[in-house]
């Protein structure tokens, strides 16, 4: 092993920059991409058209609420112009706040206060509608409370004791102060609870994808060395050719593990991310064996690179539909992303390598 480390060092020290570039690509790439998507997601707005038909406090209040929402950008236009823009898909959807909005809210006549226009390309319509409706609901609910309280005090005291402002103020205060209901989410098979899963897994998604690409591309030493005339000399060395390759593959595995450890620490500290150590270990093991296999199969460097990109590309493209049964079986990243131990691909790759190793052995012994 010492010989392997020293001889490998001779190769690596010539191309330190490239070596570290590909080694750190999954970590740095995932961090950068994640940060980028995060920023873009924050800054992305759904362009909607809003037409306000009445100048009342509540209508303005609703308009303000939409304006301050962090995911829509309002374009205030004329009705016809808005509809034209909607048809051309320059707007996602259009909302019209009708005349009589305030009165409707105050008198609990809460039907058809607003008209919404959507097309079948209004991808964000449901989310925007949900936001608007929930705000109307909030306004309406408060006035409902006002009404109920007025009725109560009429019944018990014969007069309205409190003004609408008072009641609404109290309600807002309660909503802000009290710890009200919230929903939590966890998987049945998971021990600890997590309030918000979802996006936090994504950084490992990106990482896992980049890890496939970079571990394939760093295996190119195998192709390069396989092509060289130098292979002839390995008949007369202490290490046979295939032992040399395997030990080098193992060395790369160890180097990767160190990088993975750093990745693990950064992700778990920076993103409060839980990922099983064994999961990560088995995934890395699979990646090393798999890329070793692929490098064994192909002869030309350029083709090998092309295949690597193709594989990474396929994995990436099939990621969104990973949940479909067949793909979930076949996808190399599936087990890892479900925080489970990667077994299938690991065994397959290991099998191919064992076969390759065994066959060479036999060939040599028999010659």
């Amino acid at each position, binding site marked *: 092993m010492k*010989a392997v480390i*020293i*001889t490998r060092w*001779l*190769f690596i020290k*010539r191309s330190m920059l490239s070596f570290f570039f590909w080694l750190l690509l999954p970590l740095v790439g995932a961090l950068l991409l994640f940060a980028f998507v995060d920023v873009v997601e924050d800054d992305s707005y759904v362009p909607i058209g809003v037409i306000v038909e009445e100048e009342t406090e509540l209508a303005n209040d609703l308009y303000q609420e939409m304006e301050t929402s962090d995911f829509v950008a309002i374009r205030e236009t004329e009705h016809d112009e808005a509809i034209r823009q909607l048809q051309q898909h320059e707007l996602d959807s259009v909302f019209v706040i009708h005349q009589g909005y305030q009165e409707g809210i105050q008198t609990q006549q809460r039907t058809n206060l607003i008209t919404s226009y959507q097309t079948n390309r209004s991808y964000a319509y449901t989310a925007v509608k949900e936001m608007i409706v929930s705000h109307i609901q909030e306004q309406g609910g408060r006035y409902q409370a006002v009404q109920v309280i007025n009725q109560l005090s009429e019944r018990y005291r014969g007069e309205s004791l409190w003004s609408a402002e008072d009641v609404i103020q109290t309600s807002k205060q309660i909503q802000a102060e009290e710890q009200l209901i919230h929903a939590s989410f966890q998987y049945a098979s998971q021990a600890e609870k997590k309030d918000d899963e979802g996006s936090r897994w994504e950084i490992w998604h990106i990482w896992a994808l980049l890890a496939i690409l970079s571990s394939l591309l760093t295996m190119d030493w195998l192709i390069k060395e396989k092509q*060289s*005339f*130098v*292979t*002839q*000399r*390995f*008949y*007369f*060395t*202490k*290490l046979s050719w295939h032992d*040399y390759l395997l030990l080098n593959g193992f060395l790369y595995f160890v180097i990767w593990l160190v990088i993975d450890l750093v990745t693990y620490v950064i992700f778990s500290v920076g993103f409060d991310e839980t990922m099983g150590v064994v999961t990560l270990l088995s995934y890395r093991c699979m990646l090393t064996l798999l890329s070793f296999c692929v490098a064994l199969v192909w002869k030309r460097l350029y083709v090998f690179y092309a295949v690597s990109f193709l594989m990474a590309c396929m994995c990436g493209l099939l990621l969104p539909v990973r949940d479909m049964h067949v793909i979930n079986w076949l996808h190399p990243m599936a087990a890892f992303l479900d925080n489970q131990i990667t077994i299938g691909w690991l065994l397959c790759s290991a099998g191919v390598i064992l076969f390759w190793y065994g066959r060479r052995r036999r060939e*040599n*012994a*028999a*010659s």
Partner: protein
Amino acid sequence: MLQVEHLTKHFGQTNIIDQLSFSIEPGEIVGLVGENGAGKSTLLQLLATISKPTSGSIALHGLSYQNDLKKVRKQIGFVPQDIAVWDTFTVEENMIFFEKLAWNHRSKEELHNLCQDMNLFQWKQRVSTLSGGMKRKLNLAISLIHQPNLLLLDEPTVGIDLKSRIEIGQYLRRRAKEEQTMILYTSHDLDEIQRLCDRVLLIGNDPFYRDSVKFF
């Protein structure tokens, strides 16, 4: 001592080597001569265990190529016809690389001396910037690192200047005599063969070589 009996090698239908038998004594340098495509490289590859004969047997110091492959290989030094060195490395790194993988340990000093013996003085220079002859010298030097008993040299001196050629020849002779190394040597330079070798082995059917070799 190397013993070859009834060695035959087919490539498909063509018979490259046919029922060849010969032997080499320790300390002997044998020249291998024949026209292009006569099968010299093929024979050396058979003797170097790189390819397998169709039939026939080879034995080195009584060790059969069939049964004691590992022990046989430890004793063989093979200089391929193609230059088999790492292009991106310096001379020094190439020597260290193969020393690390060799059966026996050699100090850096010894490696350096070995290159000096081959008249190769560009110790720190990258192989890709070496001249053709220098690469040949390195190719030869690497094969000598593990001090083999049987040296199989496939046109080791092509493109090497005359002075170096003579000095390398002297070095090989010295080795053969002092350490009882057997050397099988192919070259198209009959003068060199004559100067260096104790004996000539002729393969192929070209009458030209048959006549030329008669002079020895």
